[in-house]
């Protein structure tokens, strides 16, 4: 299957992974995965969310321990025990969320815990610290003062600091998890320049990304993962459709997508002139009964912010919200729920679930008032009954209604969050990254559920960073970039290309919100 192994050099690869498996409660995250990385190559790792890329990389970086299988470094089997151990093995990782301390300077961040000392180790040698950091920056040809507090840097610059930090450990294997997700074009060029530099020094780079064009530009080989298994490793110049086919496998069939005509339906939600600082700028849109409206855009484009603002979770600077044609004042999530809205957060663990509580407590949380006797006591029988109905209806896999939510798989957790809004009978539902961290099987179930919910006459807003997901679900797609809506595309005309073009239309000639494209 590995068509390239014969071309490889005789020396052992930097990293070689064989038959690696890893399970989490309820999910088999990795199933006999194979992967190898050579010195001086950029090896792209592609696959849908939940395909297992991050799990694999976290095992290499010592964040998780493998269940079975083998990892070899320079041909020698290694047991990676911890992140610190991975560092000592010269494996570095740049996480998607950067782990820097905003109040410390770049230099202090890079050498945290390893600060050079003076005066017999009693004092920190700040000068030496800054000199060492400057040397690292010089090596990357990075113009940046080591004494700048990290909090004052752009995300791109912070990422450079992370890279410099990884290099300070004499890293030979550098894992980058979606490094360009929050970068603009110029910043991406800068990143690529640094990647090429590292490559020329013999560093092996694992590059996780969803962006085809980038991978074709920077990568040497591509390994595609799906459902926790390795599909194949191919040269990076393999035609794009072929790679996509390997990636999406079975469920991405556009053919069966049916877009109902909802143009005559009642407008359930209308938003006019929404503004909030620099994150939301003049956003207007409407959603009709039965309609699924997709919000596409890059990370940080302002989609989540719009949903949170409409839902009352964040305050607004300006804007009008109309529900069923009536102007409503929404100052808190409570107001939004009263107006018939529900919001499923992109971050279940922080905003969606009370993970320490059981399934039925979570399902009945927004609607608890309805399950009280004399307005005070919990009516446990009713709570059981409605929760059981939801568990059956959404096919939530849980050993019991009193199972702690934390112990469910990602897909089932998400269904619990959906259930709590269904119990509340919300007509307007915001789904923010509804399938993040969910395995593929559960994903298609959630898709089906969203389509059913719309068919029952609800208005659905789906926010997703996965274009295939937006394409598959949306009857209409709104694209955002830098807080503005940069375009609207009917579902049957939307393609990855035209959405991506709109998503990167920065500070364009301020196209009106409803401008059609192409």
């Amino acid at each position, binding site marked *: 299957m590995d068509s390239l192994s014969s071309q490889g050099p005789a020396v052992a690869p930097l990293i070689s992974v064989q038959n690696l498996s890893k399970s989490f409660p309820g999910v088999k995250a990795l199933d006999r995965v194979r992967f190898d990385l050579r010195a001086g190559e950029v090896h792209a790792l592609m696959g849908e969310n939940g395909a297992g890329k991050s799990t694999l990389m976290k095992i290499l970086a010592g964040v998780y321990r493998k269940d079975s299988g083998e990892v070899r470094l320079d041909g020698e089997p290694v047991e990676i025990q911890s992140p610190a151990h991975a560092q000592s093995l010269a494996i570095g990782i740049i996480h998607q969320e950067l782990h820097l301390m905003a109040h410390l300077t770049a230099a202090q961040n890079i050498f945290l815990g390893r600060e050079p000392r003076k005066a017999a180790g009693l004092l920190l040698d700040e000068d030496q610290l800054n000199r060492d950091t400057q040397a690292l920056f010089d090596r990357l040809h990075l113009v940046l003062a080591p004494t700048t507090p990290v909090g004052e840097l752009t995300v791109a610059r912070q990422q450079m600091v992370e890279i410099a930090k990884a290099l300070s450990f004499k890293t030979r294997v550098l894992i980058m998890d979606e490094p360009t997700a929050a970068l603009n074009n110029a910043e991406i060029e800068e990143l690529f320049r640094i990647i090429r530099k590292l490559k020329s020094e013999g560093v092996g780079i694992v590059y996780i990304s969803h962006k085809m064009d980038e991978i074709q530009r920077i990568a040497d080989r591509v390994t595609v993962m799906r459902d926790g298994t390795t599909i194949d490793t191919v040269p990076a110049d393999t035609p794009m459709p072929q790679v996509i086919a390997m990636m999406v496998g079975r469920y991405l069939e556009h053919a069966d997508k049916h877009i109902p005509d909802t143009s005559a339906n009642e407008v359930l939600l209308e938003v006019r002139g929404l503004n909030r600082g620099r994150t939301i700028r003049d956003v207007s849109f409407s959603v009709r009964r039965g309609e699924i409206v997709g919000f596409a855009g890059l990370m940080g484009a302002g989609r989540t912010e719009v949903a949170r603002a409409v839902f009352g979770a964040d305050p607004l600077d300006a804007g009008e919200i109309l529900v069923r044609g009536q102007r409503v004042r929404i100052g808190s*999530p409570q107001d939004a729920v009263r107006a018939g809205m529900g919001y499923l957060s992109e971050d279940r663990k*922080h905003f*969606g*679930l009370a993970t320490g509580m059981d399934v039925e407590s979570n399902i009945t949380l927004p609607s*608890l008032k309805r399950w009280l006797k004399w307005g005070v006591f*919990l009516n446990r*029988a009713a709570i059981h009954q409605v929760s059981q109905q939801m568990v059956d209806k959404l096919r939530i896999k849980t050993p019991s209604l009193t199972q702690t939510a934390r112990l469910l798989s990602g897909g089932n957790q998400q269904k619990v969050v959906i259930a709590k809004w269904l119990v509340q009978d919300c007509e307007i539902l915001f789904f923010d990254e509804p399938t993040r961290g969910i395995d593929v099987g559960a994903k298609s179930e959630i898709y089906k559920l969203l389509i059913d919910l719309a068919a029952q006459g609800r208005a659905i807003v789906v926010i997703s960073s996965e274009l295939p997901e937006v394409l598959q679900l949306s009857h209409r797609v709104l694209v955002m970039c830098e807080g503005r809506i940069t375009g609207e595309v009917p579902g049957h005309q939307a393609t990855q290309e035209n959405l991506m073009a709109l998503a990167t239309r920065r500070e364009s000639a301020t196209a009106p919100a409803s401008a059609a494209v192409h």
Partner: protein
Amino acid sequence: MTQTTASSWLTRLSGGQAKQMLLAFASLIALLLVFTLLNPDAFMTKDNIIGILQSTTVIGVLAIASTFIIITSGIDLSVGVLMTFCAVMAGVFMVNLGLPMPLGIVGALLMGALSGTTAGLAITKLKVPPFIATLGMMMLLKGASLIITNTRPIYFSDVEGFDQIALGSLIGDLIPSLSIPNGVLILFLVAAVCALVLNKTALGRYTFALGSNEEAVRLSGVNVDRWKVIIYAFSGGICGIAGLLIASRLNSAQPALGQGYELDAIAAVVIGGTSLSGGVGTILGTLIGAFIMSVLINGLRIMSVAQEWQMVLTGLIIILAVYTDNLRRRKT
């Protein structure tokens, strides 16, 4: 496969919680055994056991009040002083103003709830962290108690029957050989009612939910601020009960008393398995925690261990209790 409604809230505990409770209970039994063996004559006597029960009443009630706050992942440093404030206000109502006892009692409880409300409002509306808000309340209430009483105790000698609240014995009236003071009954009554509230009412459900994930609760459309104020007010009212108990036992309101009780209360809560990071906790555990503390102090005192050493040992027990709790948590 769902649990039946017949299963009581006691068995609804998760496995880990049940284990912690069992552990705490086993520790209590072990302590009792050890002290019985070391003092065969003095420890396991009726009088001493009643003494232990009696000495747990005030801390027990305060610990129950704190349990609610700690489950929301908050902390209340003001419970000890609030207890005193309520005792003082009971004195003001009944002695200084001469109101009838029932009115005085209700008034004192309301003052507790009012103070709790104030702390709750400072936390939710002014966004002052619970630690600071209740630290402020602690100082404020202590000052208020001293000002109101002019730093002198208020005696309830003229309020007929007031000392019977804690010291009388309804059980003793029925069974003369078993003179368990009313204060102990009140402690168990408060525990039972609070367990009911914590496990069977919306207030209890939101208490756990807030401690488990406050933001998720807010995004569920629940008025988080209002519920938090209600929880602090409820807890304040319970502190009022503690205030009445101590005032009744001393037959006076001692304005300088109370500081330090909050730490004993927190210790009892933590020994009982309630997590300081919130979302987890039981009233029964707290009750056991409170008894562990009093048994320890009582047993050491009978053995004539100096008070300084009692403190040292209590400190060690608290750290040990939380350490075993952590061990258990890491395993699950």
